[in-house]
């Protein structure tokens, strides 16, 4: 009886791990999508409404979801509270703080970091160029993430259950 419970536990936990890993791929894609959406909203605020950065980021935070929303809210807060910080510094600090909750890859993080350095420190035209460039990069990354998701999501999930089963059989 005890063996049976143990075996079930092993199978279930491996299965869950597989599912979480699979779902992370979906979440990663979703984060990239939210980021692009947020940056598009930021573009509207900066380029067309000429809203000052702290307020613009606050508006963007309201329009996005999950950890991405938290990230934009953090930058806005950092800018409002931090004494003597440029937009780029506030962006980096917030990114560092939110990083553990994000599923973005190292490459994507460095893209964001790089973009943040010029945030708010140039004229409208230059800001638009930067926003367009980062949005294009993120769109490419999203496509890649989507392909990875389609390829690996099922594999992870199946692999989880299979590993659990194999391990149980080995122990039995």
């Amino acid at each position, binding site marked *: 009886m005890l063996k049976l419970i143990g075996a079930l536990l092993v199978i279930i936990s491996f299965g869950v791990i597989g599912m979480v890993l699979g779902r992370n791929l979906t979440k990663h894609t979703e984060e990239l999508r939210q980021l692009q959406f947020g940056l598009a909203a930021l573009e509207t605020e900066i380029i067309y409404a000429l809203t*000052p950065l702290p307020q613009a980021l606050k508006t963007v935070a309201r329009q996005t979801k999950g950890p991405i929303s938290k990230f934009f809210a953090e930058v806005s807060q950092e800018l409002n509270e931090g004494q003597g910080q440029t937009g780029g510094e506030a962006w980096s600090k917030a990114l560092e703080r939110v990083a553990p909750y994000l599923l973005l890859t190292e490459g994507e993080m460095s893209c964001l970091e790089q973009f943040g350095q010029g945030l*708010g420190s140039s004229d409208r035209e230059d800001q638009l160029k930067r926003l367009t460039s980062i949005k294009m990069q993120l769109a490419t990354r999203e496509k890649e993430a989507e392909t990875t998701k389609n390829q690996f999501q099922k594999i992870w999930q199946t692999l989880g259950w299979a590993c659990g089963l194999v391990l149980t059989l080995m122990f039995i």
Partner: protein
Amino acid sequence: MTNTFEISRSGGSFPIAQNIRQEVLPFLSPDLRMLVSQIPDYELEVLEEIRLRINAPVLLKQRTEDKYLRKDGGLSTRWEHSVYCNEENMQKTVALLCNSSLYALEEELRKGFLTLPGGHRTGFVGRAVLDRGRVRTLKQISGVNIRVARCVSGAALQIIRHLVKGGVFLNTLIISPPRAGKTTLLRDIICMLSNGFSGFSPVDVGLVDERSEIAGCREGIPQLPIGRRTDVLDGCPKGEGMMMLVRSMSPQVIATDEIGRKEDADAIEEVINAGIKLLTTVHGYNKEDILRRPVIKEILAQKVFERYVVLSRRRGPGTIENIFNEEWLPIRERRLKEC
């Protein structure tokens, strides 16, 4: 002997130093802020400008002296001991001044200045971005000049009675060289007319503040005291603004500063014809000096002004040299001789 107007605005021993600490220092980059905050109150009290230029000494212009910021937070008259403003200092200061939103300040940068809360005016220089031959904005800011707003209430106190006759304000022209307290005096006269004083009931004043210098408007709201009955047309060209005020707000007095363009002369004629009193200023040292300028000569020939107030920096900003009547006869001559 002449008088100067320098009476503190809100009591306390160093009110302007306190204002600088609260309203100006937060906009300096952290390193510079730390140094400037160590300057004693009595030195800050007489501070007029903070000038930053990339790779140049940090200059603090006081009422009578120009001083450089030392590395230990003191002031020195010699630039050799000065701390230099590097690129990072400048970038951070600009980021703080524009709230990390340089893109939102295109209009302000096109004009070359920004008004901080408290009415402190900040000028910028950098590389101009052109659009069809006209300046669209500035980028790569390389120099910043923060001018401390000195709102000296009481500046007009000693001369206002010469500018009023039978309870009616007389058309007045203030003649003054740069940095002699022209705008301060103008603002205080506006304030007194707008609030009223003994022997003079308050009137509606229309103010055309082309350079946002008099009312120090930030986002349309005046930051400096200009009286309870003053309507401000902020950032509007003087000539056009005066006409707009005549048509729309029916003021009893129209105030503006630094007249000198052809359109101004036409607008002044319009204002006078509408029975509105005029208060304005002109750059210059004396009558002969301003008469060299054709437009001013034309305006003066019409005998529009009933009072001329001449300022100088002889005994510091705000030295009132004399007040003349419409015939250019000194009103205060006797009093001045007595002094």
